[in-house]
């Protein structure tokens, strides 16, 4: 591999990581846009999502080391796993909102945010205590198809992550832009009191935001497992913080911003790791977080001043 090929390969890797971070960042942004709440439970909804994906694959008979699937069977297994994982993660998000966050709705201050940290630790410990601390092999039904791109290699798992993320982001964008519920979500994010006086049931909008964001995190968790071929109770923290950085970088509350921020963070991780060293990736990413907060607190696509009157 030439130097150029190495960087090309890192761009491919970075876009894959970025697609995953974008899925995760969207959940932060959807909830923040409506409640102005940073939902740290989201970190571990993602982690639980990857375990749900693992469980579904096993139920479908896809075991680690099993032969690769092809054709209709492959598509059916992947699609089925994706849908079940997203539903389960989405319902987990809704349950968190109903049980732990709604009772705090009218409290001012950081009570709700701190509660989300607590829930995050509960989820982490439940998985740790019930499934153990060792990382689990993630079954991978993907054939080992590869395609040379210049001197770099494109694998099927990268293509899969890109396609799934693109499709989900396209569906989300369509939903938010054009459906009745999506428009009500945007209205609520822009002026919750006025939205309520249009007859919008704001509680339902909050449920929708948690469901969609958590379902996307579930999809991200499944992608994580298929990409790295493992999962563990600990994966939520690093991926979650990076995705949160992506949401802030893009402008928290801003849907295209979360997608853009995710891709940028993924590319920085891959290319920065190549330029300096992989262990410096987080230093670079979180330095960027600090710089964004200092110099452009509204993020790349965010509004300069939030519209509140």
């Amino acid at each position, binding site marked *: 591999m030439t130097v150029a090929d190495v960087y090309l390969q890192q761009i491919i890797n970075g876009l894959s990581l970025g697609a995953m971070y974008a899925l995760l960042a969207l959940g932060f942004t959807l909830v923040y846009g409506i409640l102005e709440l940073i939902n740290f439970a989201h970190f571990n909804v993602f982690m639980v999502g990857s375990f749900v994906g693992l469980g579904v694959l096993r139920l479908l008979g896809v075991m680690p080391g099993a032969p690769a699937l092809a054709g209709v069977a492959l598509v059916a297994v992947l699609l089925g796993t994706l849908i079940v994982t997203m539903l389960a993660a989405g319902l987990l998000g809704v349950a968190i909102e109903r049980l732990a966050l709604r009772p705090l709705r009218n409290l001012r201050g950081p009570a709700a945010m701190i509660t989300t940290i607590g829930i995050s630790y509960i989820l982490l410990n439940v998985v740790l205590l019930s499934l153990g601390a060792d990382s689990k092999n993630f079954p991978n039904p993907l054939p080992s198809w590869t395609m040379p791109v210049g001197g770099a290699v494109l694998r099927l798992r990268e293509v899969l992550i890109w396609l799934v993320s693109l499709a989900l982001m396209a569906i989300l964008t369509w939903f938010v832009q054009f459906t*009745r519920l999506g*428009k*009500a979500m*945007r*209205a609520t994010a*822009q*002026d919750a*009191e*006025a*939205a*309520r*006086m*249009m*007859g*919008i*049931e704001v509680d339902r909008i909050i449920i929708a935001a948690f469901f969609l964001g958590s379902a996307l995190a579930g999809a991200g968790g499944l992608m994580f497992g298929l990409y790295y071929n493992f999962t563990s109770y600990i994966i939520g923290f690093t991926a979650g913080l990076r995705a949160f950085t992506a949401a802030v970088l893009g402008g928290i509350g801003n849907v295209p911003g979360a997608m853009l921020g995710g891709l940028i963070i993924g590319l920085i991780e891959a290319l920065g790791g190549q330029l300096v060293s992989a262990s410096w990736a987080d230093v670079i990413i979180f330095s960027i977080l600090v710089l964004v907060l200092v110099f452009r607190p509204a993020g790349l696509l965010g509004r300069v001043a939030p*519209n509140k*009157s």
Partner: protein
Amino acid sequence: MPPDSGLLLEFRGVNTHYGDLHVLKDVSYAIGRGEIVALLGGNACGKSTTMKTIMGVVRPTSGTVRFEGAPIERLRTAERVRRGIAPVLEARRLFPRMTVLENLELGAYTRPRGPEYMEDLERVFALFPRVKERRSQIAGTLSGGEQQMVAIGRALMARPRLICMDEPSMGLSPLLVEQVFDIIQQINAQGTTIFMVEQNAAMALAIAHRGYVLQTGQVVLSGEATSLRENPAIREAYLGELQVTPAAG
């Protein structure tokens, strides 16, 4: 009261509190079908709280609010909108990053999307040709007058029986204020009852049938608009050359 009598909205002995702050104090209003009723008063006298109490954003601590005879003080806001109450909010409060058309659509959020919806949209466009021209524009980029037209149009999209307007003249040039009040009269003539909070007492009493004057949370005067216009206390406090603001409450 105009001939087609019968109460549309009624407050009876309503009290509201924000924490320890007693805002509305034993307030009663009676708004008849087909009326324009103006609610006058200085800053912080409870005018906006009245609007929020009608919409269900503020709940009374005691007293009853009836709409078409049925008590509504425990109903959720969405249910009140469904029953036919629509707001024109203070400072317009359009959804600033959505288009004019999307804002109008959200006004009709509780109504089905059908021929009636298209009728309502055509009616708004006929009333405000300007809004039709601007329908694809982002609402936050409109001028204040255009935003007020969209805000009124958005309320009409709910096909309401009662429109509650909070300071429709706020921040508008005198010429625009006159246009807006003309439109309000037209809407009323087409059968919609208007309950309007207004600082601009002269304009409000020029189009209103009746008025209430609120001072530190209490109704201190009420009556026909013509008699309020002649009332020396009103003339001094709201219509005179000296703009006297009553004690803040």
